[in-house]
Structure formats: structure tokens, C-alpha cells
């Protein structure tokens, strides 16, 4: 008699997504779904969908959902969590949504220490609207609004969200993962599990940035997109844990006085 060792998690609706072939949004959806199942949270989880390619996430997860306005998912998540602290609340956001228009909302949501989980999908481009430059677009990378490639002298350097958020003093769990290979996906799932566990135990705000592919707007076949990510994004977006609730203060100190350690004025 056969046992099924790998199947669609219960927290993922049994439907075909609209995502392009090879888009790793799908992998991230599944990892989140698996974590929700494994922690037994499905029936008390409320997700917040962004405006972006994952706008229809509310159709893909088998949990209650809000569809937020562009960039405001962290504010909506705050509203839900403050109204119903007993619920498990997560937002799922792209890099245009979170790091461009939604910068104030994510910084303040993290700084207030809202006990929610943010799944931040960094694919270095605006997918849904057809490939415009994102705050995370790599130097020299071509996008429809930087046809000659991102010029750091005009548009600045890509924003590193995990680094930025981790420097806030309010306790939080902040990490960066990738899903360009199955083994990276396994590590990503581990971080997602940690993030949701911190929320389940009402410990702190958590954010997991996940590097993802956009074969369509990168103009690279899926199988090559993973290599492109590894070669171009990984060096600039190092993977790992940036902040833990009990851990040290990650903010830099004034130059010359070395880095501010956890010993600093509490």
C-alpha cells in the first residue's frame, strides 16, 4: 500500500495559478502553505495580499484573506492583528509593493513590533505591470523604465530590505532566503517556520525576504533564471539571519566608535 510523502499542503487551494511558467512565486506559496499546515494554523490564519503578481494570492491560499491597496499590506495587517490578536496574520508582498510605495508602512509596522509575519518576495522587478524598475533592480539590469539598465548614479543602489529593517531597535526576526534551487527552498522554509513560530508564540514581528525569479520580465527562460539569480542577486543580497528577537542591536554606531553592540543604552 503506497504512502504519499509529498503532496499539496491543505493551506494551498487546489487550483492552477496564473503565474508564468517557472515563476518561483509558486514555490514560495507552497512553502508558506506547508509551514501553516505543519504549525496547525490554517483555521486561524488571515493573509494579506499585495498589489502585484501575487494579488490573487487570496485565491491560492485556503485561508481567509484581505486584498490590500498597493504597498499598504503592513498597515492592513496591523489593523487585523490589533483587532484580533488571536489570529495569525501574514502579508505577502513584492518588492515594488513593500520597498517602493510601501516603505513607510513596512518600517513602521516593524518598528511598532506588530506581531505579524511579512513574506517579502524580492524578484528585482515589477512583474504585474510588465517589467519596470524596482527599488531592488540590480545595477545595469535592464527594465522597461531603465531601458539602458539601472544607473546607480540616477536611481541609486538596490535597497536591501532585510538589512534596513534589521537595524531598528524593536525586537524582531529578520532573515533572507532564496528559492532558486530546491535546497535553498528547504532553507527558506526553515526561516518561514521560525517566523511563523515567533508569531504563534506572540514573541515579535518577523520578516523573511525571499529572492525569487521573474523569467517573463527578466526575459530569461525559467531554467536559466535560477542561474541568473545566483550569479547576480546572491552576492548583493547575502542570505542568512539578520536579527533575532533576543539578539544584539544591529544598528551601526557613529564612525570611529565601532559598531553598536547589544550593550548599548537600553
Amino acid at each position, binding site marked *: 500500500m503506497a504512502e504519499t510523502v509529498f503532496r499539496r499542503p491543505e493551506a494551498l487551494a487546489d487550483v492552477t495559478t496564473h503565474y508564468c511558467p517557472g515563476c518561483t512565486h509558486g514555490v514560495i506559496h507552497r512553502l508558506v502553505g506547508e509551514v501553516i499546515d505543519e504549525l496547525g494554523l*490554517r*483555521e*486561524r*490564519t*488571515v493573509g*494579506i495580499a499585495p498589489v502585484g503578481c501575487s*494579488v*490573487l494570492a*487570496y485565491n491560492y*491560499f*485556503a*485561508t*481567509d*484573506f*484581505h*486584498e*490590500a*491597496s498597493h504597498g*499598504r499590506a503592513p*498597515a*492592513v*495587517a*496591523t*489593523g*487585523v*492583528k*490589533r*483587532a*484580533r490578536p488571536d*489570529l495569525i496574520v501574514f502579508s505577502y508582498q513584492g518588492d515594488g509593493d513593500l520597498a517602493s510605495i510601501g516603505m*513607510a*508602512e513596512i518600517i*513602521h509596522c516593524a518598528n*511598532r513590533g506588530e506581531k505579524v509575519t511579512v513574506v517579502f518576495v524580492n524578484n528585482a522587478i515589477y512583474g504585474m505591470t510588465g517589467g519596470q524598475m524596482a527599488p531592488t533592480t540590480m545595477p545595469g539590469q535592464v527594465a522597461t523604465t531603465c531601458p539602458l539598465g539601472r544607473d546607480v548614479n540616477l536611481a541609486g543602489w538596490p535597497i536591501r530590505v532585510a538589512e534596513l529593517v534589521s537595524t531598528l531597535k524593536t525586537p524582531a526576526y529578520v532573515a533572507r532566503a532564496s528559492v532558486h534551487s530546491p535546497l535553498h527552498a528547504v532553507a527558506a522554509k526553515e526561516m518561514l517556520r521560525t517566523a511563523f513560530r515567533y508569531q504563534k508564540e506572540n514573541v515579535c514581528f518577523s520578516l523573511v525576504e525571499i529572492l525569487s525569479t521573474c523569467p517573463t520580465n527578466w526575459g530569461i527562460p525559467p531554467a536559466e533564471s535560477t542561474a541568473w539569480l545566483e550569479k547576480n542577486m546572491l552576492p548583493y543580497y547575502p542570505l542568512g539571519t539578520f536579527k533575532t528577537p533576543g539578539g544584539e542591536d544591529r544598528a551601526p554606531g557613529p564612525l570611529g566608535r565601532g559598531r553598536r553592540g547589544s550593550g548599548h543604552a537600553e
Partner: protein
Amino acid sequence: MAKKLMKGSEAIGEAAIQAGCRLFFGYPITPQNEIPEYMSHRLPQVGGTFVQAESEVAASNMLYGAAGSGERVFTSSSSPGISLMQEAISYLAGSELPCVVVNIMRAGPGLGGILPSQSDYFQATKGGGHGDYRLLVLAPWSVQEAADLVQDAFDLADYYRNPVLVLGDGLIGQMMEPVEFRTGRVPCKPLPPKDWAATGCKGGRATNIINSLFLDPQVLEHHNQKLQAKYAAMVRDEVRCVEYGTEADYDVLVVAYGTVARVCSTAIEDLGAEGVKAAMVRPVTLFPFPYEQVRRAAQKAKAVLVVELSTGQMVEDVQLALLGTRPVHFFGRQGGMLATPEEVAEQIRAIAAGRSGEVAHG
């Protein structure tokens, strides 16, 4: 409860609490700072939650999350802050979320000034945000009425699953008057269960989704028609206005809302002595607008005077009500300048004596 002397802003906050609201998300702005300040000390006392949002944009989206969770929630701001909420307000209406928004209007445009004004009427009643949607708009003229309307606002919001806007001005926010909170108040509407709220799909219930996106135009058109049917029901059932002296006969009908209507009532009384006969219709709901009542009351008058603390916004609705059957005159002050009883009286005299020109379009 016994009468208490309260600032309008505080009465609004207390009324929300009396109505069972336990959540406030807002950002400071004069002349309504006393509302968030009051909520910040009062809510913790009743087990509620106050959050000072990072901005009005954030506050209005926190409202979205809390309302979508099925809880009673409100926010308040003043003109510039309300402009920043327009996208979220369109989302709230599109997703049919019950909530209350208070706008204590100040003078504009731009940063303008902080004194009383009524220049956000169009934004409130026609829709400052994108798309075809309506807010139910309530306009109090006293602190007591503000307290009463705020409580009704929560019931109306829940009944219609629609945001309700309470439109006051700096005077309402700042002045103190006696207020009484009726104990054992009953909701002004039956309150349907919020089984649509996103609260976790326990016991295998189908998932609830709070959403305003409908990619299929046929579905979105249908959604729009559903919303319009709801607004039609408001027009049918929720019109509120108060008439003053319309039982007697009069030459001039005044139409005004909010605190400026009090100025007009004083003017009308003072004129009585002179034998100049005037009456007033005061819209309490600005959407739905009391077209019918204004039309009826105007029949007895030779002419109609609209008084606003703006350059003339509600006057268009009065013209739509009368469709040329009576001449419509307008008197307005702007920038925080208040119309005085004396000024209004002079306007009425002029109209009664046929010394004043009416409003025209184009």
C-alpha cells in the same frame, strides 16, 4: 447618564466608545487632535486599542484591516489628511467594509489654514476617490448631535456594509456644549451578523475574502450595480433633514448644514422681529441629500438662499433639487472666516427685497 459639558471632539470620541467601538487608528492634525488624544487615554480604560498611525494613508488602511475583521472601528482627521485617505476610502467602499471616518474640516486648499470650513462637501458627497462609490455622510450642527450621529454612524455602517463619513467643522471640534449619552440606547438599524468577516476559516467554513478586485469586467460591472442598488436604498430610507419654520409662510427659504445653520437660525429669528419672513431646511444627511424636502419647502418661498463656509458646493445639489423652479442665491465665507447672523440676515433682506442676483451655470 447626566448631561456633561464636553468639547465636540471629546464627545465624538466618547460616542464611538458608547457605540461599542474599541479600535481607533489615526494621525494628529488640527483642529481634531482632541479626538486621538481622547481615544489614547480612554480606550485602554475600556480594554480597547489606540494606535497612532504613521500617516493618514496608514491609518485608513489599518481601518481596512480592522473593519475587515468585523470589529467596529473609526478614524478621524481634517481636510488634508482626508485627502490622503481617498484611495483607501475607495477601497473601503469597494470592499463594502463598515467603518466610520470623521472629517473635522479646515480651510483649504493646500495647507490653507486651521479654522472652520465646509469646503470638502464635494469630496465627501460626490466621491473624492476614484470609481463610482458613495459614502453615507452625516453633518452635525451641535455637540449633542455630533454625539448622536456618531453612534448612528456605526449602526448605519454595519447595516449597509459601507463607510460612513461624519462631516463636521472646526467649531464642532472645538466648542463645548452639554451632552447626554442615553443609556440603553438601541441601534438605529438592525445589525446583520458579520459572517463575511475574515476571522479565520474555522470548522471548515469557506474562506472569507475582503476584496475590491474583479478582473472580469462583467463581474466588476455586476459588483458596481450591486453597490448602486445599496446607494439607492440609502436614498430611499436614510434621508435626514430638519425644517425650521416651514409650517408658517415665508418668502425666503434658507438651506444650510452644520454649525453655519445655527448662525442662519439666529439670523432668521432676528429677522422675524423686522417682519422679514424666512424658514430653513437643514440637511443632516448630505448623501443621501434631501432633494425632495428642499423641493417641497421651496414651493412656499419666493427664493432660496444657500449658505456655506465655502465658495459654493452644496448649492449644486440645491439646484438639482429645484431644477429652476425657484431662484437660488448663494452666500459663502471662506478661509476660516465665519458667516455672522448679521451678514446672513442682510442677505435674506436683500433677497426678500429682490436686491440680489441668483446663481447661474456657464
